[in-house]
């Protein structure tokens, strides 16, 4: 798909000077999240971090490989169920429970990815949507997911036997750690040799094939990685809210992550995090407005598509002439 042609960021070559810009931005990001919990409600920040990681993982696929998945919620949600089940029913400690969730999402990613990557463009998106809808039906029917009540009262437990996650601030630092770990992994992947191949596939797939790259394998690895990281976000979210529910596997969630990524800036490193933060803020602070929430959200999307298609970070990068 030519989706990413409109995004300015990645077209600019990555030189050491631009890298230092990115380090600067990364430093600012870390500093913000270190100080923020003293001013902003930590549970809200944790939600933003989980969605930030989710959107970053999604962006790895759409922004750098050019594969628009329209069923990504399934990885977020199924990892949530797996983590919640492991923590509540099997009594796993949180680190293992999150691992179970991540692994489950990764395995699902391998399955769905293997089927979906045979198709391109809109047909790829539709295949992921179809498979995700089937899994949604499974989540609705399977007894262990608790139907529309979900899995509630999931114990947060004690991480590594020492960190009591029942304490909000402890939970916050752990979530921040997970987020930064996942974010750096995405960043490393983009800037690795594999990332270069992925970008080459996005720009011109037949050419990548003719150069001898096994395109399907690269795509599958990227898909599984993206799914597993989405799962990491979903598992963490399930522990934060002590809840795994149908909301996270519904197709509207798949739509929301597209919007987060687009709003922040498709194919930019920091865009998805910014987009997620803006979306979560909207949902959170507009909750007082009732039905106006959807209207305001809708207007933002319209304005975004009509006036700044590169997204917030993408436009910023264009102004600074540096990839962010």
């Amino acid at each position: 798909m030519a989706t990413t042609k409109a995004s300015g960021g990645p077209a600019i070559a990555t030189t050491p000077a631009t890298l230092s810009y990115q380090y600067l931005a990364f430093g600012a990001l870390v500093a913000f999240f270190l100080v923020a919990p003293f001013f902003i409600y930590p549970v809200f920040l944790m939600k933003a971090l989980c969605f930030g990681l989710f959107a970053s993982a999604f962006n790895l696929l759409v922004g750098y490989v050019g594969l628009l998945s329209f069923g990504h919620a399934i990885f977020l949600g199924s990892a949530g169920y797996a983590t919640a089940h492991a923590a509540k029913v099997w009594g796993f400690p949180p680190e293992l429970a999150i691992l179970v969730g991540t692994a489950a999402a990764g395995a699902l990613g391998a399955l769905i990815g293997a089927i979906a990557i045979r198709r391109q463009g809109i047909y790829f998106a539709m295949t992921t949507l179809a498979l995700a809808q089937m899994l949604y039906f499974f989540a609705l029917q399977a007894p262990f997911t608790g139907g529309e009540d979900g899995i509630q009262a999931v114990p947060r437990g004690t991480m590594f036997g020492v960190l009591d996650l029942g304490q909000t601030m402890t939970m916050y630092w752990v979530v921040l750690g997970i987020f930064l770990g996942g974010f750096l992994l995405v960043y490393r992947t983009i800037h690795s040799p594999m990332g270069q191949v992925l970008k080459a596939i996005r720009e011109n797939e037949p050419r990548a094939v003719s150069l001898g790259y096994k395109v399907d394998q690269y795509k599958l690895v990227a898909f599984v990685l993206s799914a597993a990281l989405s799962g990491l976000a979903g598992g963490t979210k399930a522990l934060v809210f002590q809840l795994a529910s149908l909301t996270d596997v519904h197709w509207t969630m798949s739509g929301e992550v597209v919007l987060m990524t687009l709003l922040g800036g498709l194919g930019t490193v920091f865009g998805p995090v910014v987009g997620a933060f803006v979306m979560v803020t909207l949902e959170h602070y507009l909750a007082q407005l009732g039905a106006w929430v959807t209207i305001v959200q809708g207007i933002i999307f319209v304005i975004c598509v009509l006036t700044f298609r590169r997204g917030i970070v993408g436009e910023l990068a264009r102004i600074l002439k540096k990839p962010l």
Partner: protein
Amino acid sequence: MVIARILGLLAVVLVAAPAHAQITGNVIKIGVLNDQSRLYADITGQGSVLAARMAVEDAGGKVAGAPVEVVFADHQDKPDVGSSIVRQWIDRDGVDAVVDVPTSSVALAVSGVVREKNKVFLISGAASSDLSGKACSPNSVHWTYDTWALANGTGNAVVKAGGDTWFFLTADYAFGHALERDTSAVVKANGGKVLGAVRHPLETSDFSSFLLQAQASKAKVIGLANAGGDTINAIKQAAEFGIVKGGQKLAGLLIFITDIHSLGLKTAQGLQLTESFYWDLNDQTRAWSKKFAERHGGKMPTMVQAGVYAAVTHYLKALAQTKSDADGKAVVAKMKEMPTDDPLFGKGTVRADGRKIHPMYLFEVKAPEASKGPWDYYKMVRQIPAAEAFRPLDQGGCELVKK
């Protein structure tokens, strides 16, 4: 600045820990959490917020020397959104009581948070009878209705009137299953038979196939174990296919007056349903509802909105006694200890499992000719006395009930 914040947080933690006999933050905050933008916005929504405000006004705006404030938010029918709003309300905004919360999944999630933080949860919009059963909590009161009471009210009456064979159209989710299960039990206990059931996905628009299956079953009664748009679509299409004319009866297990309003009497006439409140019950309900409608665009209150008013009223009365809102359990214990008395539900009690006890009513929807105007929709068939309206205390499996 940062240090001041941390100190502030610490101070809050230290103050909140022991149950001081006073009003925390010198203000009583009531948070109305419900659906403002989706399926249940008409049944709960801004109407519930208005009802809470009216309760506060009627209590004089002040209790135990502290002003009472009402805040509200939209949970969008999502449990995670609901529970995170409630966490923030309690942690940061000093909310003392959460009110309403339609859809059982959100209510269950909120109940967990409120219990953990030891505040008060006044449930009006949610239906699951588990909220005063398996999932009961010393911090909640379930006010208006529940699935057991609905099943009991409608099921009982319809079987007694000769409708002894049933076929269910059930929404395929926990709430629908619970309604079907509870109603089946009532039907069987009264000597009736359940001939079959079909589970349809939530928010189905076309029911003709299911109605045809119900028709083929030859059951005398078609029980609608669903809600909102699903029920409305099923009733609309039953009229189209001549189900009622063909001799079968429809029994709606969860129908609100706003649903009847949107169906129109021509389509809805003859339908039997159970509610715990109707604006035209007596002089007091009429007077209150008139005041309500004037401030709510002419719309009459639903039973959920009435329940919010009554629950907040009783909560404020209990606060006036305890003179402290710090210990949610103690306030709820007080609410259970004091008999309730309000203009909408009359005299009643709150049981040990948190279940509010009052009469329920079986109504029949009037024919268009019999209605005197908008909102004049119901004819009372039977008052179900408080003693038999709700599930007996020992059958719910609530941990708070001493065996």
